[in-house]
């Protein structure tokens, strides 16, 4: 026995200490836990998140279509912002010598029935459409996140009300309500954006609610609660950062939904009214002449599809990057 190799505890590889005590042997006395200290320790997770950001970027970059979509979206936005500014025509400026023309050098997309340049109207329309969509996405996300967080974390009445509201929108489809109210209040870009925002937020609220419901039982939240952190602090410092990925993804996808809804309403003459152009009402104006001048329908239509495609691909890439567990395969 004396000559045999003896391994002393101090010679054991690092990482060994402390482990045996949790499995068997003597349990060390629990140290006094200072609540603030525990919370700070939990927030130390943020130090790791820098490499999370790096990983996110790597995953996103691998998603080549999303990257292309982001670039195209940027170029489109740039064109919508700079285009009307570079154009020699104003978007509501009429030229009575050039009524209802096809594409020409002076008017590359042609002119409409009252002599307005369709190209500048298309770019300006894209600008209004994008502005409305962004406004809707932000409004919806803010309202949806707040309501969803409260409903998911506290449950109870607010949760029940949210549930009822979602069911209500199932029975009376949002499009019907939009049509009814859009006639009167949807005629301006801000009006339609507010209407869409107020009707779309339950979708976000439902997602955020689900996430909060899931996270509120997780150990880091329980630990924070045990350490005495108050509900608002837990909700916004501990849970919200974890729901960031899905929220950003859905906010992105909402831009696409908003563009489609806004242009559809405008197409049905329920949305933004002339002379303010949006991609939707340009098509509405041009559809009567679809036989003779299909380009006036197809060009704004193409822009709508380009934006929504890019937004959807971008959202998909962001989902892969920010929320890798969300998709299987």
């Amino acid at each position, binding site marked *: 026995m004396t000559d*045999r190799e003896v*391994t002393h505890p101090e010679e054991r*590889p690092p990482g*060994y200490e402390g482990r*045996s005590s949790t*499995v068997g042997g003597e349990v060390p006395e629990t140290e006094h836990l200072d609540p603030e200290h525990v919370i700070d320790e939990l927030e130390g997770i943020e130090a790791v998140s820098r490499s999370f950001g790096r990983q996110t970027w790597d995953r996103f970059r691998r998603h080549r279509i999303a990257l292309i979509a982001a670039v195209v979206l940027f170029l489109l936005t740039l064109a919508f912002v700079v285009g009307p500014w570079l154009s020699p025509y104003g978007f509501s400026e009429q030229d009575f010598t050039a009524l209802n023309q096809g594409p020409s050098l002076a008017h590359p997309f042609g002119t409409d029935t009252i002599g307005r340049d369709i190209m500048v109207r298309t770019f300006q329309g894209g600008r209004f459409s994008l502005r409305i969509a962004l406004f809707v996405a932000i409004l919806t996300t803010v309202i949806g996140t707040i309501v969803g967080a409260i409903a998911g974390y506290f449950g109870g009445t607010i949760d029940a009300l949210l549930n009822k509201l979602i069911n209500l929108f199932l029975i009376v489809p949002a499009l019907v309500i939009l049509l009814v109210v859009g006639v009167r209040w949807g005629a301006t870009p801000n009006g339609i954006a507010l209407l869409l925002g107020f009707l779309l937020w339950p979708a976000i609220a439902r997602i955020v609610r689900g996430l909060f419901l899931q996270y509120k039982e997780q150990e880091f939240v329980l630990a924070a609660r045990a350490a005495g952190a108050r509900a608002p602090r837990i909700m916004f410092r501990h849970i919200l950062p974890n729901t960031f990925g899905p929220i950003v993804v859905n906010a992105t996808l909402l831009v696409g939904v908003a563009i489609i809804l806004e242009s559809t309403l405008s197409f049905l003459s329920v949305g933004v009214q002339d002379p303010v152009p949006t991609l939707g009402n340009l098509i509405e104006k041009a559809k009567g002449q679809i036989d003779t001048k299909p380009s006036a329908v197809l060009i704004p239509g193409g822009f709508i599809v380009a934006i929504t495609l890019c937004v959807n691909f971008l959202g998909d890439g962001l989902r892969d990057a920010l929320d890798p567990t969300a998709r299987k395969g």
Partner: protein
Amino acid sequence: MTSTTPLLDIRDLTVSFKTDDGLVRAVNGVDLQMFPGETLAVVGESGSGKSVSAMAVMGLLPSYTQIEGSVEFEGTDLLKLSTRAMRKLQGNEIAMIFQDPMTALNPVFTVGNQIIEGIRIHHPQISKQAARERTIELLALVGIPEPRQRVDNYPHEFSGGMRQRAMIALAIANEPKLLIADEPTTALDVTIQAQVLEVMRTAQEATGAAMMLITHDLGLVAGVADRVQVMYGGRVFEMSDTDTIFYRSRNPYTRGLMTSVPTAAARTDDRLSPIPGAPPSAINPPRGCVFRPRCQHAEDACYEEPPLLALDATGRHLSRCHFAEELPELGAQDELGRSA
């Protein structure tokens, strides 16, 4: 070990998966033999390659995996069989019991119909009624009360232990020659585990099948297995009969397993001491011996040269360790461990 011709003969099996981070070699040159009617325990931590080896035998690995080596079952190489020919063996000659009985049964079909389907796919000449009678017998055999009523129940109407019994009934329905049980009791309550093990033994006796019991729990093995094969990092680390493994193990990893598992430790009256560190990366395995970073006995040689799986003087005990012969006797180490 009733016969000398192996029922299952795995030679130099290597299984690799392509991932975003590189080629993962889950199984790395594994040899394994099983003889008719015997029980072989394949023991190792998660990631040791034990389950992947079993899936390779069952032909259940996804098509994008690269499989090399040979898996001979009664003399035919399963890796060379067509899917159609392989299907004739699956559930018929070779059957498998999975880890999680809660999810292993299809929730939308009755337990009985799932077993009947398993019988009739291989024996279409058996009538539905006869297959149903056989199923009821099987359910009775695995200890399900009132099998005649229970046969029409859906999986969710069964408890976890009952579902695993039903899985066993399904596995033995066609009297397979080889039964692979992949962690069959891990997902169950401790109180149920012993019962299910007992049912498996009954099932094995009723069919005369050889059983490969895959587990991470050495303690489970003692009363059940004839032989034990210990795996680590996709490689075989030690193989011998159960008594030899328990009382005369020649491998530091096996010894670590024994002292880290509560049931095994209780058996050897040892104190618990987990193996430090984590299983090796399958993408970048450590140099030399894969167990070296966690081994208490590691020396320079272990860093330089990966040890081979070597036979000892008795010719019945394989161990992959440079110092297999120099390791202290188990009993002695026990006392040292206690005094340390």
